[in-house]
C-alpha cells in the first residue's frame, strides 16, 4: 500500500514551479502591459491618410495587424515603440494601422477588408508602403526583427 502511494505521489516541486510560472505570467500581464501606454508613432485614420500623404508628399505606411498575433506585438514594441524608428516613421511616412477583427468578430469593416484584398494580405503582421495614390512601393510580410524592418524602410523612397 505504502509502495503504491509512493509510486503515485506527484512531486510537490513540480506543482510549486508550475504555480510560480503561472503567477509570474499573470503578474507580467498586469504590471508590464504588452503595448506601451504612450504611442510613439502618430497613427493617422485611414480616411485622412490619402489626403495627408498627397499634401505632404509622403509615403503611406499601412500596418496590417491583429490582436491575437504575437509577432505583431513584438513589432509594436521593437519598432513602433522605439523612439528613433518612431521618429523616422513619423517624419517620412503617414502611418496607418488597420487591425484585423476576423477572429474576434467574425468579419472586418469594409474598408479594412477591401484594403486587405487590394494588397493581398495573407498573414500578420504585414506592412505595406504605398504612394498617395495607393500604388504599392514595398512590403514586409511577417516580422524578422528590428534591423530587417529598418533595412526595408531604407529601401523605400
Amino acid at each position, binding site marked *: 500500500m505504502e*509502495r503504491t*502511494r*509512493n*509510486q*503515485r*505521489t*506527484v*512531486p*510537490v*516541486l*513540480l*506543482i510549486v*514551479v*508550475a504555480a510560480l*510560472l*503561472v503567477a*509570474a*505570467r499573470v503578474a*507580467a*500581464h498586469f504590471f*508590464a502591459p*504588452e503595448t506601451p501606454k504612450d504611442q510613439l508613432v502618430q497613427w493617422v485614420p485611414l480616411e485622412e491618410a490619402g489626403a495627408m500623404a498627397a499634401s505632404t508628399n509622403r509615403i503611406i505606411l499601412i500596418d496590417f495587424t491583429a490582436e*491575437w*498575433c*504575437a*509577432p505583431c*506585438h*513584438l513589432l509594436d*514594441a*521593437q519598432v513602433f515603440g522605439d523612439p528613433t524608428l518612431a521618429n523616422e516613421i513619423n517624419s517620412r511616412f503617414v502611418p496607418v494601422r488597420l487591425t484585423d477583427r*476576423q*477572429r*474576434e*468578430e*467574425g*468579419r472586418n469593416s469594409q474598408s479594412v477588408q477591401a484594403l486587405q484584398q487590394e494588397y493581398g494580405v495573407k498573414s500578420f503582421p504585414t506592412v505595406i508602403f504605398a504612394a498617395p495614390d495607393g500604388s504599392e512601393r514595398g512590403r514586409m510580410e*511577417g*516580422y*524578422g*526583427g*528590428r*534591423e*530587417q524592418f529598418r533595412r526595408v524602410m531604407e529601401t523605400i523612397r
Partner: protein
Amino acid sequence: MNLFSVRLLSKVVIQETIRRHLTHIGYVTYVAFMAIVAVGVSQFGPPGAMWPTLVGLLAIITGCDPIGPEFSSGTLQLILVKPVNRATYLLSRVAGVLCVIWLAALVPFACEVICRVVKGEVPWQAMGTTLLNTAVLAILTVSLLTLFGSLTRAYLNVAVYMVLQVALSVIPMMLSLNRERFAAISRVIGVIDQNLYPEAMPGLDWRWLLLVISNAGVALTLACFVFRSREVPYGAD
C-alpha cells in the same frame, strides 16, 4: 509522508531515452536532413529560416513517444512493476526527449553558423533568439503530447494534438457566421489557441517565453496527475 521525498527526475530513464533516440537511424537521418536544409537555406534565406519548423516537427515526432505508445506496447506495464514513481518516470521521459530535440536543434544551428562564418557575417542575435524560441516551443509541444498521451493509448496523442489544433482554427470561422451570438465563445477559443499553439516568435520576448513555459508547466503537472490515477492493466493492445 514526506511530500518532498519524491525525486523530480531519474538519471537512468533520461539516459536510456537519449540513448534510444541517438541510436535510431530515423533520428540520425532526420538530423542530417536538417543540417543539409540549414546549409542550403543559409546561402540565400534570412537567419534561422526553415530548420526551426523542422525542429518543431521533430518535437511532434519524438514527443508522442512517452506514455501512450508505451501503454499499448506493454512497456509501461513492465516498467511500473518496478518501484519507480510515476511522475518521476513521466518527467524523466519528457526531459530525455527534450534533450534529444535540443541536441538535434543544435546541429542545424551550428551548420548555419559555420556557413555564415564562411560568408563573413553571423547575425548572432537573430540566430540565438531563433534557437532559444525553438527550444522553448519544443517544451510546450512535448508537454502537450505527454498530457494527451497520459489520457490516451498508442499514438492517439498526436491525433488529439493535430485535431485540436485544426479545430481551434476552424471553429471560430464557423462561429463567425453568427458573430453576435458566438462572439464570446470565439474569443475564448482564440485565447485557448494562443495558449496551446502559440505562433513562433521572430524575436526575443520574455512575455512570450513566460507564456510558453508556464503553459508547459501546467500541461506537465496535469499529465502527472492524470498518469497518477491511471490504471495500467497488464497486456498490450
